[in-house]
């Protein structure tokens, strides 16, 4: 393999050849930090990192936590976009830190990292997810059938019936959608996109028999009718679920059921 050799004159003023080949760039992580034991106010803190732009934001946070400041607190479990633990507001948009490559979010400027909005911040990037999971539990996210006996065979379903709710089975409960919703930011009483998506998953499941009950739950003052179709949730979903469409389908089901 012949490597092109640069003239000395050309190389003058340029970084060392070895350094130029280095994939590392300097990135500033601007992290929203909050520690109630130190201050009631949240503050921004800048961290400069030498990092490969093809790495993820989560790798940058790991570098900070492991090598720079061990007090930085954030959630992450699988680190591969399936557990839904590390949803955060990166450059003003809700994303999973483990699915966001640094090169994709303009590393020239400082990368801002904040906790997701609308839920109480406990420390740094960790929020209290309880209101979110409360809304999730309220829509009964489990199969309900009338037969009290144990089934003696599988509950069969046609491919078309399965396809009907396929999109909403992809939810990983990361709260990126619910915490991007301006209606949820207001008073947090709205069920939120994630709960409606998980209700949709069972309402349109041909094997489930409590669709009517779930529709009634979502016919609440703070149910589907508070949706303003701003599409923030669809934009935020790291799984690409058409969240607003699912909410509209629930609305339509409610209307066609009544009229």
């Amino acid at each position, binding site marked *: 393999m012949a490597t092109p050799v640069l003239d000395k004159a050309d190389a003058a003023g340029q970084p060392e050849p070895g350094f130029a080949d280095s994939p590392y760039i300097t990135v500033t992580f601007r992290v929203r930090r909050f520690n109630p034991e130190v201050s009631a106010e949240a503050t921004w803190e800048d961290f400069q990192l030498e990092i490969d732009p093809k790495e993820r934001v989560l790798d940058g946070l790991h570098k900070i936590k492991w090598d720079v400041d061990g*007090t930085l607190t954030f959630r992450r479990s699988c680190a591969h976009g399936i557990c839904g633990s590390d949803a955060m507001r990166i450059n003003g948009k809700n994303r999973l830190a483990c699915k966001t490559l640094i090169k994709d979010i303009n590393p020239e400027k400082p990368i801002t990292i904040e906790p997701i909005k609308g839920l*109480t911040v406990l420390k740094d990037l960790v929020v209290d997810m*309880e*209101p979110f999971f409360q809304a999730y539990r309220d829509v009964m996210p489990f199969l309900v059938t009338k037969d009290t006996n144990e089934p003696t065979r599988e509950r069969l379903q046609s491919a078309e019936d399965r396809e009907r709710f396929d999109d909403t089975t992809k939810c990983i409960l990361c709260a990126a959608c619910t915490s991007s919703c301006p209606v949820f930011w207001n008073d947090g009483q709205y069920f939120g996109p994630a709960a409606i998506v998980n209700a949709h998953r069972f309402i349109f499941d041909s094997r489930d028999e409590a669709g009517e009950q779930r529709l009634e739950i979502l016919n609440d003052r*703070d149910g589907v009718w508070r949706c303003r179709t701003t599409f923030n949730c669809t934009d935020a979903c790291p799984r690409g679920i058409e969240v607003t469409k699912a909410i509209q389908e629930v609305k339509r089901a409610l209307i066609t059921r009544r009229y």
Partner: protein
Amino acid sequence: MSTTETAAPGVGPVEGTPVYTVENPAPLIEAPRKRTKKTPKSTRGNFELAAWLFMRLSGIVLVVLVIGHLLIQLVLDGGVSKIGFAFVAGRWASPFWQVWDLLMLWLAMLHGANGLRTVINDYAERPNSRLWLKALLYTATVFTILLGTLVIFTFDPNIR
């Protein structure tokens, strides 16, 4: 890898004397959106469904009514210069235009009031500000609808 750390306000030392102890615990962060005893058990009902549907249907009807109204009042047959007491008296002599204007009044007022109601619900954060804003809104709506209806039905073309 070289990393540098800049100003670290608000971040206390991990090791060292803790600020809070068992006797003097850190302040509890109360979740502002927690479901408390005051939170109603259920606010289910068909009102929001009906309101949502009304907004869509009245919107469609209003497009026809308002565009027709604007055409007649401002564009056709001499435009705005023709409007006067006689023009209004002439139109309201016919029950058709009475019904048209009445329908437009009611639908526009209810459509607008319902829209403002959702805006208040979305943007007012304290229950008290919600209550008073909505009270003001409903009073203004009822007043305007009743006054408008009264005028349409009791209009006297021979008034001096």
